[in-house]
Every structure is written in C-alpha cells, then in structure tokens.
C-alpha cells in the first residue's frame, strides 16, 4: 500500500528534487539582477527613496537601498515558496500525504542563515547610524531651532531670528526669491544654511513634542520638552528643500511647514551679516528682528 522508502529519516526530506533546482534558479536570477546594481554603486535603484541632499542622507540612502535589495531577495524567495506550494500541492486525490513533521538540518539552516543576514544588516546599521549622528567639533554654522504650536523659529548667532507661523491658509512668501519652484516647497519659514558646509542644529520645543523632518535629507528628529537634541546637517548643493512637522502636536499639526534654503557660502555669509546688522541697528539690545514669513 503506502510507498516504502527504505532509507533513514535523514533522506526523507521535504525538499523534493524539484525544489532545490528551482530555488537555485531563483537565487541565480536574484544574484544576476543585483550584481550590476551593486557594481553600479551610485546607480542603485532608489526604490522610491531620496538619494538625499546631505552627506548624512547619502549614507542613509545606501543603507536603505541595500536593505531593500536584501528584503526583496528574501521576500521574493519566500513568496515563491508559498506560491509554489499553493500551486503544486493543490489537492489531487483523497490519498493522505506523508505525515512528516521534522527535518532538523533544514530547520537549523533556516534558523542560522537569517541570524547571519540579520547580523550583517546590524553591522551596516551601526556604521551608518554613527555617521548620521556624528557631530563635528567645529561646524561652520550653528542654528537653534525652536518648535512650537504651530510654527518654527530659527535663531542664528548675533540675535538673528527667523520665525514663521502657520494657520489654515499658509501664504508662501520668503527670501528665497525665485527659487521656489514649485511654490509648495516654500511653505513656512526658511531655515537658511550654507551649502557645502556643516550646520549644527540644536533642536528644542516650547510646548509639546514636534518632529523636525526634511524628506530630502532622509532625516527626522524630535523636539522634546526636557531634551535638547543636537545634530549636524551637511547640505551638499544649494537649493530649497521642503519640510514639515512629523509628530502629532495638536490641531494644526498638518500645517506646520518649514523649508531649508541652502545658499552658496558667500551668499549665505552676506545674508547673515546683513541680518545681524539689521538686528543690532533695530534696538541695540537683544531683540529678535524677525524676518517673518507671514503665513497669513
């Protein structure tokens, strides 16, 4: 009656002769697909992410792309196994199939291999997060960012302050002149920084938790009561980058926009000097002349 397989249990494997071949084919295809990408280096597919406009963002992008590729390989493999089972082992007769339950070598393999993959991912993660979180000893510029319900304030050395509020109808007006294209990039106040240099951000809040999030910098950080967060942004190219609050902070959370304006260093310096001059002239003492972005 039942087929007699007169061999030891070790050979009675759930992996049929078909599966290893198929799996090899899949792995081969995956390798063939990823190899040119890996070799291509900078021409990694973006998988909908931003390559990033800061040095820190580039580091994150490499990690993201690499992790996505690994996830795709694993995902396609496992999905293929599921799909294969569903198609190939559809009920064909009333015969009760072989009632096997264990295969220790296989189980050990699919325990150990994921641990190895995970440890490799962890290694890359630690390297990248150290680079992203690293702060230089002497940044070119320091800005204190204060988040509040529902706007942002940027304080520069020399009593220069840029503030913006948002209401139900933000009006995008700013010093960025004609750089806002599309205009939607310039909602809220502008955080002006020098391109190609490192800017030290000190992030605080006046009230609840807010999130400082610049999508194209692949970066966000909380502004939290009782905590002062410090991080560096090294914007590579001049331009305008939209940003907004990302941690629920109350009624107008959706409208708490700002944007980052990266100017060539000379232009940035002249802007800052003129702001500092205006601040000193305005009152002579510590008043903050705001170059207010009236988000009316």
């Amino acid at each position: 009656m039942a087929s007699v397989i007169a061999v030891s249990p070790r050979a009675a494997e759930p992996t049929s002769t078909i599966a290893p071949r198929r799996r090899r084919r899949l792995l081969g295809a995956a390798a063939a697909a990823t190899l040119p990408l890996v070799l291509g280096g900078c021409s990694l597919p973006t998988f909908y992410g931003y390559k990033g406009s800061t040095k820190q963002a580039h580091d994150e992008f490499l990690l993201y792309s690499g992790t996505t590729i690994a996830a795709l390989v694993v995902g396609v493999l496992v999905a293929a196994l599921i799909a294969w089972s569903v198609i190939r082992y559809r009920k064909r007769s009333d015969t009760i199939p072989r009632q096997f339950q264990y295969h220790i070598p296989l189980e050990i393999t699919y325990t150990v291999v994921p641990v190895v993959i995970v440890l490799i991912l962890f290694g890359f993660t630690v390297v990248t997060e150290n680079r992203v979180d690293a702060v230089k000893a002497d940044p070119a510029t320091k800005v204190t960012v204060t988040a509040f319900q529902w706007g942002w304030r940027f304080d520069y050395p020399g009593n220069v302050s840029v503030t913006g509020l948002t209401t139900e109808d933000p009006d995008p007006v700013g010093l960025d002149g004609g750089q806002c294209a599309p205009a939607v990039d310039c909602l809220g106040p502008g955080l002006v920084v020098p391109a190609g240099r490192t800017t030290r951000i000190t992030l605080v809040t006046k009230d609840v938790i807010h999130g400082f999030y610049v999508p194209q910098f692949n970066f966000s950080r909380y502004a939290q009561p009782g905590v002062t967060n410090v991080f560096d942004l090294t914007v590579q190219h001049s331009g305008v980058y939209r940003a907004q609050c990302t941690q629920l902070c109350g009624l107008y959370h959706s409208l708490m926009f700002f944007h980052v304006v990266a100017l060539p260093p000379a232009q940035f310096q002249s802007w800052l000097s003129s702001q500092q001059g205006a601040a000193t002239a305005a009152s002579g003492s510590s008043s903050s002349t705001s170059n207010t972005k009236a988000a009316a």
Partner: protein
Amino acid sequence: MTVLAERPVAHEHEHDHEHHEGPSGILKWLTSTDHKLIGMSYMVTSLVMFFLAGIMGLLIRTQLTSPHNSFLSFQQFNALFTMHGSLMLYLFAGPFAFGGLANYILPLQVGAPDMAFPRLNALSYWLYLGGSVTMLLGFLVAGGAAAFGWVAYAPLSSVEFAPGSAPDLWILGIALTGFSAIFTAVNLVTTTFYLRAPGMTMFRLPIFTWNMLVTAILILIAFPILTAAMILLFADRHFGTHFYSVAGGGVPILYQNLFWFFGHPEVYILALPYFGIVSDVIPVFSRKPLFGYKGMVFATMSIAALSTGVWAHHMFTTGVVLLPFFSLLSLLIAVPTGIKFFNWIGTMWRGQLVFSTPMLFCIGFLFAFLMGGLTGVMLASPPIDFATHDTYFVVAHFHQVLFGTAVYGGFAGLYYWYPKFFGRMYRESLGKIHFWLLTVGFWVTFMPQYVLGLHGMPRRVASYPSGLGWQSLNVASTIGAYIIGLSFVFLLVNLWVSWRKPVPAGDNPWDAHTLEWFATSPPVHHNFERLPAIRSERPVWDYHHPDARTETHHNGHGHVTEAGVAEAGVGADAGDKA
C-alpha cells in the same frame, strides 16, 4: 448553581450527563459564566468595534482624497484617527483574540470543561464592555473624542494641551479594558497549566493554545505597565502631580518609555493569537501535521521574549535611546518569525491543499505579513527609521502586519470555527468573494502608502500640499479602502444567509486535528461527554486516522506506522516528550 464537573470517562462509556437547567434569555446572558457564551459575547462586541473603527477609517481616507479637503475639520480628523487606532487595537484586535476566540476554543483544545475561573471570566467581559462604552462616550461630550493619537504622548495628553473630559474617558476606558485583559490572561494561564485532559502534555498542546499561553504571559508583563502609565497621566491631569511635565521636575519621555514597554509587547499580544490560528488551520487544510512543531513553540517564545526588549525602537528619533541595543533586538525578531514562515511552508509542502475560505485567509495572511514583516526589519534600522518615522511608510507597515494578523488571521479563525460555534456551515461562495475583494482592497490601499511615506507625507495629517503628486496615490488608497469595506458586506450577508437557511455542519466538517473537533457542534454544557485517547498534538486526527499518524524518529525508516492506536501508551508517540 455550581456544578462539580467530572472528567468524562473513556470513550466507550457514555454516562447520563446532567441536564443543565439555568436562566434563559437576557438573564442568561447577564449571568452566564460559560466560556463559550462569554467568548461569543466578546466576539460579537469586538466585531462591532471593528466595524465602527472601519467606518472611521473610511472617513479618514475620504478626507485625504484631496489636498485641502473640508470634508472633516482638523479637530474631527484628529479625533477620528485617534479613535480608529484605539478601537482597532484596544477594543477589537486584542479582545477578539484572547477574549473571544481563545475564551471559546482554548478550554476545548486542552480538554477542559470550562475556564479555571468562570466568574472572573465573566467579569472580564463586563469590564471590557464597560471600558469600550467609556472610551466611546468621548464622542458625546463637549469637545469631541480624544484627539491625541492612540498613543497619547505627554505633554500633548496633559490637561493643558488636551483639556476636556474625552481624554479622561479615554484613559479610564483603557484602565477598565486593561484589567479585563489581565484577568483573561490569568484565566488562560491557569486553564492551560491546570485543566488539561490526561495525556495532554504541554508539548501536545495545539499551537493556538501555546500561542495563547505565551500571549497571556505577555499580557501579564505589559498591561500593568500601561495601567501605571495611565494612572500617572491621570494624576498629572487631575491631582496636580508632575510626572510628565518638565515644569514640575518631571520627565516627559518617561511616558514614552512606559507606554512602549507596553506598546511593543501589545502588538505581539495582538499578533501571536492569530499566528496560532494560522498554525492550526494550515495543517488541517494540508492534511498533514504542522511542520516543526517544537520549533514553532520555541519561535513563539523567542518572539515574545524579544518583543519585550525592543520598546524603544518606537523612540529612535527622540535622540536619547540606546540605538544599537534596540536595533539589534528588533532585527533579531525577524529570525523566529522567519522560522514560523518556513514551518508554515513546510506544512503545506507535499500536502493535499484544500482552499476553503479559512485556508484562503491563511494564504492571504502569509503574503501580507511577509511584506509587512520585511518592512519592519527595515524600520528596525535607526537611520532608515529617521527617514521614515511618522510617515505613511510606517502606516503602511503596521497596517500590513496588523491587518495580516488580526483581519486575515482573525477571519480565518472565524470561518474555521464557525461550524463549531453554530453547528451549521457558512456559504463557501460568499466567503471566497469576501476573501478576494478584501485582498484586492488591501493591497490597493496600502501599497501607495509606502510610496507616499518615502516621498515625505507624514502621518496624522488632515491635509497635504497640492502640487507634490500625492493626490493620485491618496485617491488610489481610498478606493482600496472602500473595496475593503465592500468585502465585509459579503461577510454580513454570509452570516445572515447561513443563519436563515442553515446547512448542518456536524462535529468535524474539516476532518480537523485538535480536540475541540471531538466535541459536538456546538459543544454541550461542560464541553465533553467523551474524550479520545491523547497521544499526540492531533488527538482527533489520530482517532479518525489511526493508520496515518505523524511520523516520528521511532518509526524508523520513513514508514507510516500502521499500528496506531494499539501502540499508544508505549514509546512510539508522535513528536512529544514529557
């Protein structure tokens, strides 16, 4: 009146089971301590919460179809996503699993007449119902329901930034449902440890029971911490304390630490029961035992253990957590989860797969959780999390995993055990339509959200700028959500038709494996009049198919043993150790 339950004698003898007299009608509902009735009450109530929360989700998605939509005000929107999340997580996914399905099924699976503490069990239900009503009362008070997100971070949830009674009702609702969960967990652990039938050793328990046991331990670990966090929050709001406010010398981030020490185990409390359902259903519809039973048990324990050490991966962007510790443990959770996946595949491998509705839902779960789990691994890496935290990438991730488990897994369980609950069959064709519509809707809803998140759309926003190309993705997502909604109409029609025109189901329509399928459909009072001999984790399969028992190493050379029942009691027991 109190009944002293007797262990049913061996399967040859039937004895006169005392006919159970008792109240009927509404008094029966109010006074019953029968785990089956309590479980059914939980299931009905939690499904009502599911549908309410689903409607809230549809409202949210409707608002987001256009960039500056005025369908909802900002206040209404914030309240809706708060309550959508709160209802789904606190009032549906958990209670449906451990209060509903586990309450009904676990005593049956271990061969017990009821839960260990029947009155405590009933109290759990009433606390759950009271807590749910308390939370929902927020919609009726001035100012509308709580609007600070289902996590209610301090200081946004302080009385200064969230005045009014609705936040207090929300906090108190959580306190009541939290105690409900703790009492249920006590019952689950005690029943599993003390009320098993003879021969039902721990390593012969069905995986659903194992998962419920582990879930119960997680509940005991996590829910008291949530209660503590809520008590401190309530005290800050009303008794002048300053646990979470800087001005009084407090530490706001303490709230996040406490909340997420609960919050991360909570999502595994929500997931593990549904993993257990899938682990019970797939073997039945593959006509094979679960592959790697022991590995499954240890994988479940590992997932639970690791899940309590990863709480601060929700706090990576705070800047004050120990990143490597939390990211390493979070990444490691992928390993036992992967083991489970391979074991499920191994179960189907070389099986004879039947694609009835429960099995379809399990396959749907596998694909949904595969992708959701992999994006979770990505989020475990802090730099990637910095870029995607609080964006729609995370929203898509957690919906895939929660939907995969609670919805796909939950309805797999509902369709699977439906004949046991009611003694009748649902309509298979309607079940299949439900599945396919749900699946189309699910993927259409959440795939665009990954892209939205990567392009910078934050979560919890009631409007977004036009001109960024986000609208078409949002519209697609909303269409998917409505398809999901439509699919549930078919479920309701199925339930209605199956009730009005019943098709009797019998005790074991699926030729299933575990002990609940030996009871009648529905089970009699105190569940079992007879029990089969228990020699493996599939006592009912062994009883009906003594010549097709699980192969063990004792069996030697790949033979399927023929002796079966006669050998029982000696060495060749399938896959167990005392």
